[in-house]
Structure formats: structure tokens, C-alpha cells
């Protein structure tokens, strides 16, 4: 805890220091360079974290920074071959390839002899049948290796020559090669053996670059004439192919990247940093519409503010627990300040994400988790202001921590800022339907949280009649809030569905899930009105609301209808079941051990 806090402070200090140390490669500037990957222009740093996360399932490496790691992978540095990257949990796989059984991470060098074997094995699986755990693991490993190899092909596939030397040699060959090619095309033959060999080699270059341009997904080079047009960006293969055009203009970005590989190989960090400076200058000048967002994203990824929030929320939880034990009012005040700080950071980070993406706050499961937490905390803080029963900050901290930890695990799956699929690409619907429905989720979770507090405090015999009544009012208000927003959200979803698929309601699992929340909340309100439930009943039903919401939020994604439910989702399913079981336990416990309050007077 303390070490991670210290680390954060150091990280912040380093980031804020204006002069980077001059005796090192300037990885900060390298980290800010733009990369077009998966349809999104992003800083090199985000890209490298995402790649490392995909391969290592962790976004850090002990030896070097993520940016430097990816750079070394791109240029085939010997050190990067020895980084222990590939996570192999499966003991059977470790045994199969006679790997050291005491470790979980293995380097490229260790796995290299088995790559062909692993890849062909993974291709041979029958995808019509559900895969066994072993097969899934082999598939996963094959994908990771595939990604790593694809990254190594971003510049050139050779170990023994730098990209700079390769490009220089190739550029030298282009003119002569083209002349010979034209001559061959006209006359049908070449006279000298030497020329024939030359053309053959040139043809090999052409084939290789064709293959590259088809396979590599890493787009580094803007079009020199219209750099801001992302459609015209190219990867290394297509950029080298373009040189065959007689009107080809030298691409300064390609030249600079080539020089960077050269100086890095030479160990000349002064020249490296100089070149980087000129490259950054070019980017800033020609890609001005994107530079602000790129920089913002760079700082956003390196600071990782949601992680800071998570740490703060844990801190608040501990402080509040001490407060409940010692009853020292300064602990409460500190918690209050910390809670507002954490919530402030939470809010700012959400805004930063919105600016970077140019989209409303919720675009995928990951951001829904972050936003659900934010909504619940906001409501909680409002209620603390009104009722002042000293539970608000504690509950906020728990809700914040829980939702952010869920988000953290969801982030392991894919880029959290991924591009939207065509049907979702509508900021209007994203900002109306999705927001209102998540407001409903957030509300129901908060109601469940308050109810949990009720159960805990009553079983510890710490709750007065007055407090119970207050908690009851809070839960009631929140359920009304949730019903309102989940209904509006569901209706807006129906309208969106009517606009894009031609039916208002199609009994799709996700739709049914949303309807379930509406009906559930309406049911609680009706039961209360009819006098079927009182304080205890309302509370216990609200805890059940946690299960209903968790089911329609995540559960329906795991039903496996139209979705591949393996990998993380398998694991997540167990967690969901565990969560549901814990909530049920809480309900049963509350039902048996808490004395019913006398019926409320109307």
C-alpha cells in the first residue's frame, strides 16, 4: 500500500519534472508518438501497454518501461527476446514443452523452438466443438505468440540488420531495379546474368513488402501530403511499396524512424534524442488536430488515475473502519476530504476519457463499470449531505473500490478505448439510452449497499430505530430513482432498437435483463405500498436487487447467446455466482436474525 503510494508520488514527480535526464534515451517523447492501431490513433505508450497487457496479462515489466519494451521488440533487440513475457498457467503445457516448472512467465527465446508446433496445433482444433481447457490455453498461447511475431514484423523481420540499413540499401536498389524491370517488360529478357539476379532480388523485396503491407496492423507513417488524413496512413510494407512510384516523395517520418533504429543500435542516445525531437516537431506541426488528445491520453495512461482512485477508496474504507471503532471525529473529516478528492479524480478521469474518445462516458462494459461506480458514489454523497448518518463515505468507498476493481479486470480483455462497432456508433443513443440505463444500475447497487449496511448494523445491534427509519427512507428514494431511470433507459433502448433493427422489443436477453430491473423495482414499490413488506422486507429485497442488476449487467453476456463465452468470462461467471451466493446468504441471514421492526404508521 505505502510502496504503491510512494511509487505514485515518484511517478508524478518524474512526469512533472521539465528536464528529463540527458544521459538516457528519451522514452517519454517516444511514448507520445502517434500509432494508428485498430482504427484508433493513440500514443505509442498506450499502444505498448495494450500489447504488453495482451501478451503478459500485466501492463508492466521489471526491466524497462513499456514504451522501451515495445521499441525493443520492434527492432529485435537481443534483450527483448529474454524478457519473461508469455504467461503459461497450464502445467500440462509447461510439461509438454519441458519448460521450467517453477516459473509462470517464459521468454520468446525459450518458446521459439515450439512456435510452429503450437501454431499448427491451435489451427487443428475443431472449432465446432466446445474447446477443452487445454485447447483454450494452447489457443491463447498461440494468439499471444502470433501477436508478438506480428509486432516483430512491424519494421523488418530480420535480426542481423537494422531497419535503417535495410531501408538505405533498399532505396539504393529501387532506381536500378525499376529500370531493369521496365527493360524486362519491354524486351522480355535481360542480357546479363548479373542483371537477372538483381531483378530477382528486387522482385523478392517487392513480394516481401506486399506480404508485410497485408499482415502488419501497425500503422506508423502518415501520408506526407495530407498527414492528418488517417485513411492514408501506411504501415512499413505499404510505405516501402510506395517507393516504386516514380513520383514518390520521401516520407520524413519513415526516415526518422529508420534513424532512430540506427542510433539505438549504436547506443548513441544523444543522436537518438535529437532525431526524436525532430520527429516530434514534425508530428506536432502536421498532426495538430490530434496532438492535444494524444498528449492527454499519454498522461492519462501513464498516471492511471483510476488506480489512484482505487487506492484512495481503500484508504477511506480503512479510515472509516477506524472511525467506527475509535469514534474520533478527525478521522471522519479526513475521510470526507479524501472521498471528495477521490470522487473529483474519478470525475476528471471520466471527463478526460470523454475528451480523448470524443464520446459519452459509457461505450463498453469497462466504462460502464467505471460509470456505475461514479453514479452510485454521487448519489451516496448527496444522501450523506442530506441525512448525515456518517455512512455515506464508507459506502462510497466500498462501491468505488468494487466497481473499479471490476473495471480493472475488464480492462485486461481489450483496449478500453476501442472503436465502436457500426451499430453502436451513435453518440446520441450512447449518451441517452446507455447513460440512463447505467444510472439505473448505479441506483439499484446503491440501494443494495445501504440495505447491506442495514443488515450488518442490525446484526451487530448497533442500529437505533431512528437510523433504521432513515436507511429505509434512503433506500426507498433510491429505488424510486432507479425505477425512473431504468424505465426511461429501457424505453430509449427500445426506440434505438426500433431505429436500427426495426422492432421496438425483440425479447433479446439484454432487453429482458433491463426489463427485469424495471419490473423488480416496480415490484418492491408495489409490495411496500400494499403493506406486504416493511423496513426489513424492503431492505432484504433491495439486496436481492444486487443479484438482479448483476445478472442483467454481466449475466446475460455470459449466457452464451451469440457470444463466445470463454476466457475471462468463464472466470467472471464463477465470480458472479460467488457474488450472488454471498448476497443470498446475506438475505437469509438478515431474514433469520434481524428482528422485524413494527409496521410503519402511514
Amino acid at each position, binding site marked *: 500500500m505505502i510502496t504503491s503510494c510512494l511509487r505514485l508520488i515518484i511517478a508524478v514527480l518524474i512526469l512533472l519534472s521539465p528536464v528529463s535526464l540527458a544521459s538516457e534515451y528519451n522514452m517519454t517523447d517516444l511514448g507520445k508518438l502517434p500509432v*494508428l492501431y485498430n482504427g484508433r490513433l493513440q500514443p505509442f505508450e498506450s499502444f505498448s501497454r495494450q500489447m504488453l497487457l495482451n501478451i503478459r496479462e500485466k501492463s508492466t515489466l521489471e526491466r524497462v518501461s513499456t514504451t522501451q519494451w515495445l521499441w525493443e521488440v520492434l527492432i529485435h533487440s537481443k534483450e527483448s527476446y529474454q524478457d519473461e513475457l508469455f504467461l503459461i498457467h497450464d502445467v500440462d503445457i509447461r510439461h509438454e514443452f519441458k519448460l521450467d516448472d517453477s516459473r509462470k512467465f517464459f521468454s520468446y527465446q525459450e518458446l521459439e523452438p515450439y512456435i510452429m508446433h503450437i501454431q499448427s496445433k491451435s489451427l487443428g482444433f475443431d472449432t465446432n466443438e466446445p474447446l477443452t481447457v487445454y485447447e483454450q490455453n494452447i489457443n491463447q498461447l498461440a494468439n499471444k505468440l502470433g501477436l508478438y511475431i506480428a509486432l516483430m514484423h512491424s519494421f523488418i523481420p530480420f535480426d542481423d540488420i537494422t531497419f535503417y540499413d535495410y531501408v538505405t540499401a533498399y532505396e539504393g536498389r529501387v532506381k536500378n531495379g525499376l529500370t531493369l524491370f521496365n527493360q524486362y517488360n519491354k524486351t522480355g529478357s535481360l542480357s546479363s546474368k548479373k542483371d537477372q539476379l538483381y531483378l530477382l532480388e528486387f522482385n523478392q523485396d517487392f513480394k516481401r513488402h506486399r506480404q508485410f503491407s497485408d499482415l502488419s*496492423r501497425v500503422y506508423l507513417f502518415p501520408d506526407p501530403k495530407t498527414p492528418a488524413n488517417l485513411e492514408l496512413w501506411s504501415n512499413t510494407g505499404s510505405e516501402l511499396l510506395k517507393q516504386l512510384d516514380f513520383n514518390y516523395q520521401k516520407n520524413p517520418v519513415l526516415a526518422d524512424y529508420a534513424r532512430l533504429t540506427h542510433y539505438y543500435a549504436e547506443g548513441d542516445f544523444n543522436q537518438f534524442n535529437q532525431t526524436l525531437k525532430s520527429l516530434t516537431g514534425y508530428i506536432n506541426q502536421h498532426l495538430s488536430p490530434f496532438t492535444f488528445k494524444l498528449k492527454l491520453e499519454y498522461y492519462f495512461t501513464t498516471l492511471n488515475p483510476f488506480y489512484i482512485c482505487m487506492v484512495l477508496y481503500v484508504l477511506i474504507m480503512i479510515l472509516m473502519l477506524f472511525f467506527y471503532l475509535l469514534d474520533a471525529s478527525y478521522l471522519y473529516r479526513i475521510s470526507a476530504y479524501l472521498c471528495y478528492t477521490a470522487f473529483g479524480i474519478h470525475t476528471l478521469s471520466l471527463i478526460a476519457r470523454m475528451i480523448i474518445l470524443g464520446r459519452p462516458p459509457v461505450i463498453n462494459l469497462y466504462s460502464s463499470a467505471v460509470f456505475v461506480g461514479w453514479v452510485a458514489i454521487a448519489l451516496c454523497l448527496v444522501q450523506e449531505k442530506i441525512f448525515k448518518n456518517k455512512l455515506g463515505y464508507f459506502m462510497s468507498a466500498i462501491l468505488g473500490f468494487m466497481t473499479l476493481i471490476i473495471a480493472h479486470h475488464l480492462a485486461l480483455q481489450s483496449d478500453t478505448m476501442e472503436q465502436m462497432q457500426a451499430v453502436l456508433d451513435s453518440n446520441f443513443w450512447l449518451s441517452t439510452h446507455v447513460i440512463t440505463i447505467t444510472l439505473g444500475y448505479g441506483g439499484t447497487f446503491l440501494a443494495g449497499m445501504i440495505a447491506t449496511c442495514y443488515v450488518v448494523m442490525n446484526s451487530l445491534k448497533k442500529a437505533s430505530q431512528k437510523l433504521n427509519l432513515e436507511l429505509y427512507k434512503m433506500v426507498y428514494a433510491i429505488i424510486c430513482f432507479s425505477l425512473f431511470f431504468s424505465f426511461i433507459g429501457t424505453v430509449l433502448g*427500445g426506440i434505438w432498437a426500433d431505429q436500427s433493427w*426495426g*422492432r421496438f422489443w425483440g425479447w433479446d436477453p439484454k432487453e429482458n435483463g433491463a426489463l427485469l430491473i424495471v419490473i423488480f423495482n416496480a415490484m418492491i414499490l408495489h409490495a411496500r405500498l400494499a403493506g406486504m413488506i416493511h423496513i426489513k422486507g424492503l431492505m432484504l429485497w433491495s439486496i436481492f436487487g444486487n443479484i438482479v442488476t448483476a445478472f442483467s449487467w454481466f449475466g446475460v453476456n455470459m449466457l452464451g447467446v451469440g457470444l463466445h463465452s470463454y476466457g475471462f468470462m468463464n472466470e467472471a461467471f464463477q465470480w458472479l455466482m460467488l457474488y450472488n451466493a454471498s448476497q443470498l446468504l446475506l438475505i437469509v441471514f438478515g431474514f433469520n436474525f434481524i428482528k422485524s421492526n413494527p409496521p410503519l404508521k402511514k
Partner: protein
Amino acid sequence: MQIEHGIFYVQKEYFHSLFITLPVNGLLIPVFPGGTLLGAVLVVNLTLSTLIKISFNLKNAGLILIHLGVIILLIGGGLSSCVVVESQVYLEENETAFYSEHLYDTELVIIDTSSSRFDHITALPISMLKPNTIISHDDLPFNIRVLNFYKNAQLSITKMSEGVASLGIGTALTLNEVKPFTADDKRNNPTALVSFSESNDFSESLLLALDINGTQKIQINNKTYYVQIRPKRLYFPFEMTLKSFTHDVYPGSDIPKNYSSLVSIKPYDTSAERDVLIYMNHPLRYGYYTFYQASFGEDVPSSVLQVVYNKSWYFPYISSLIISLGLGIHFFVHLFKFLRKRS
């Protein structure tokens, strides 16, 4: 259930039915009430409880609106499950269409081409074809006897000399009855063995099936008719031509960004011809018809549009508006009351 059977089947079986049944020894035993019954009961219950339980005064205006809205929503839902017609049209670039085809419903058509100005088409819904019945229709000067009918069948070219029918292509075909498919991506092949005659001499037989492309010719009383089983058609009040189809991806990736079809519409009435762009989340509404970008062809630039004909499409909109309004009024009235009480 849905993994096994596809959403259309599930909807029909569970939500658009009176009872959810379980087959026991060939008998269908109702186990749970189906969506239709549940909805109907709910409407009655809601109406009565709104009338009886809620006192009609201004304080309860929100509540009354909410319940009224829910009643309208349910009625609209029930109505639309009866009146909605869903179909698809496949268009290659520069192709023109004036009808779309149902995904599941089929019909038997008898076409009389003797008039020079128009074809006289008689369409019989496939549900009329029951084995061993005789169908007569006012528009037809002859009777049709259904010798046999299969919901789904597999046709294959016969190796022996005799086919299943005595006329038409069926003379060279044998058929195998197959259990009807329930998955979304498989289409049934309704097949009928029929006989046409104006006197009641049903000795000849003709094989008709959805899988048989094109019409078959029959001669009755020296007059030629063309018959076919084909997907039920939904005719548009205009002609539609696909001018171009585009499929955009995000730069440097395979992630689809947008699909769009530029179509030109030539109405049969006097209104002017116009071009419309149909794309994701932006369907074309024309009267009760709505056209959506649904899919596209892989090989040639082509587009698949989903066509929905729904006379009750505005029901959910109206009811949602009423309920939202009611919820809003009720929620805010109470919030203000609560805040005033506290301060």
C-alpha cells in the same frame, strides 16, 4: 433454449403463445402461461386495479399516467405481434425491386398470364394446404386437391425411373420428410403434392416446393397457368433501385464503421422520385413501411434491407412518453415534498 433454436422460434413458442407446452406422449400439456395470456391477464388486472385502487385526484396524476401508459404499451405490444410483417429484400447494385420476401412465411401462387395487360395472380397462404383437402377459390375455375403436405422436406433427383409426381419436375424427384428447423439461419422447405382439376378427377399430381426455383406450367381446360410455392411477398408502394452500397471500416483495421445503401425511390403515385441513404441507425420510413440496413452480400456490391410493415409502430412511442411523463411527475412531486419537509 435460444442457443438451440434461434430467437424467432423462441419468441413464437414462449412470448407469442397462450401456453408454454411440454410434449408428453404426443400430447401437448400446458405447463406455464405464455406471453400472450400473461399480457392479457396483466392488462385486465392493471385496468381494474387502476380503476379501483387509485383514487382519481391531482395528487395521483403521475400514478394514473404511469398505469395508463403501461396498459397502452401492453395493448400495443399484443397488437404489433399480430400485425407486424417482417421481410427482407436483397439488391445488387443497379438492381430494382418492388417487393420484399418473408423470412418464414410462404404461399402458393397460381398465375394466369392470359391477359395482355396484367398477370392475374392468386396467392393462397401455405397454411391452407392440409393433406386430403380440396381447395376451391372464387378466382379459380378449378379445384385443388392437396394429396400430401410436408412442413419441411429434402428433395433429391431420383435414380429410379419413377418420381413422386406424375407431372412437372416432380417426375424426376424423390422426397424425404425432415423435421422442421427451428434455428434462425436454416430455412424450411415446405413441400406439397397437389392435383388440379375442374371436374373432380384428381389422378394427376404435381410436386410443389419452396426449393424448386421458378414456376411450373399446368394446362387446365386448354388454358395455361403457372404455379409455384414461394416466400410470401410484401409489395412496396414504389420501385426501389440500389444505386450504391458502401461498407466503411475504421482506418487501419477491420472494425466496421458504417454500412450504407443509397437507393432511389420511384413511387407509383404522383409524388416525385427521390434518392435516400439508408444506413446504420437511420432507416427509411415510408408510410407504415420501414427499411433498415440489415446485411450485405460478400461477392458483389449488394445490400440486404430488412423491411418491416407495422401499422402499430407508434404505440410504444406514445405509451413510453405517457409513462415517462407519469414517472417524472410522480418522482419530482415526491422529491420536492420530501425536501420541503426536511427544510
